[in-house]
């Protein structure tokens, strides 16, 4: 079996990208916790990973013969943000729920660190293979 470094590291790299995007959205929600009329947004991690994994329409396309082959290279790590349905409406139209945001940030940060750990381990083992165990 041929070893492809791209496909080896790809999955966790994508997971990092999506976790990063989600953290950004959540930071935005926390920043706007006191802004009247602001609608909290979030992405669904599972759907985002699935659409990134299937390659579908998110992957890069080679539209000319001069383009490099893009097999195994991640598409853009983006998912469409959705508006969150608030647990209870507030008078000023703001739908940010600080508790939910904090919980989501903690969860995403753990996911991010997990992906980092996996990625580190993969890089270590690849390095081990390159050095031949020396």
């Amino acid at each position, binding site marked *: 079996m041929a070893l492809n470094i791209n496909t080896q590291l790809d999955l966790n790299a994508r997971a990092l*990208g999506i976790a990063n995007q989600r953290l950004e959205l959540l930071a935005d929600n926390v*920043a*706007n916790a006191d*802004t009247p009329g602001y609608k909290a947004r979030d992405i669904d991690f599972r759907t985002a990973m699935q659409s990134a994994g299937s390659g579908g329409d998110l992957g890069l396309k080679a539209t000319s013969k001069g383009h490099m082959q893009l097999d195994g290279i991640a598409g853009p790590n983006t998912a469409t943000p959705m508006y969150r349905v608030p647990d209870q409406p507030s008078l000023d139209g703001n739908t940010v729920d600080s508790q939910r945001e904090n919980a989501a940030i903690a969860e995403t940060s753990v996911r991010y660190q997990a992906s*980092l750990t996996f990625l580190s381990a993969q890089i270590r083992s690849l390095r081990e293979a390159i050095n031949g165990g020396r």
Partner: protein
Amino acid sequence: MGMFRIFDISGSAMSAQSVRLNTTASNLANANTVASSPDAAYRSRQPVFQTVMNNSAGAAAPESAGVRVAGVVETSAEPARLYDPGNPMADKDGYIYMSNVNPVDELVNMISASRSYQSNVEVLNTSKELLMRTLSIGQ
């Protein structure tokens, strides 16, 4: 670069919340100032927050990038009129005009602002920690 945008976002929120703390401090400091006419009386100042939308080219949905203070408005509540002829600020009928600051509102605002500030610091610290760990990847 993605991760660095969180610093901008949380930083903007911290600056907005500190503007809110500033107006609270100013309102509380002037809670007992008096004036000789209703127009000259101190009126409570409140910041108005607004989401900053960043419509970068190629983005599917407008991305927001933090919060900013759209302006500081003075509340319209009428200043209270007190009869105090001995006060040097009294008008010709002996009335003075108090500021319309409600200290209870201001204290609640202060707590809310400081809590919001804290959560933003928390977000900033989390993303800083993640960034530092990302820098040491593969080691």
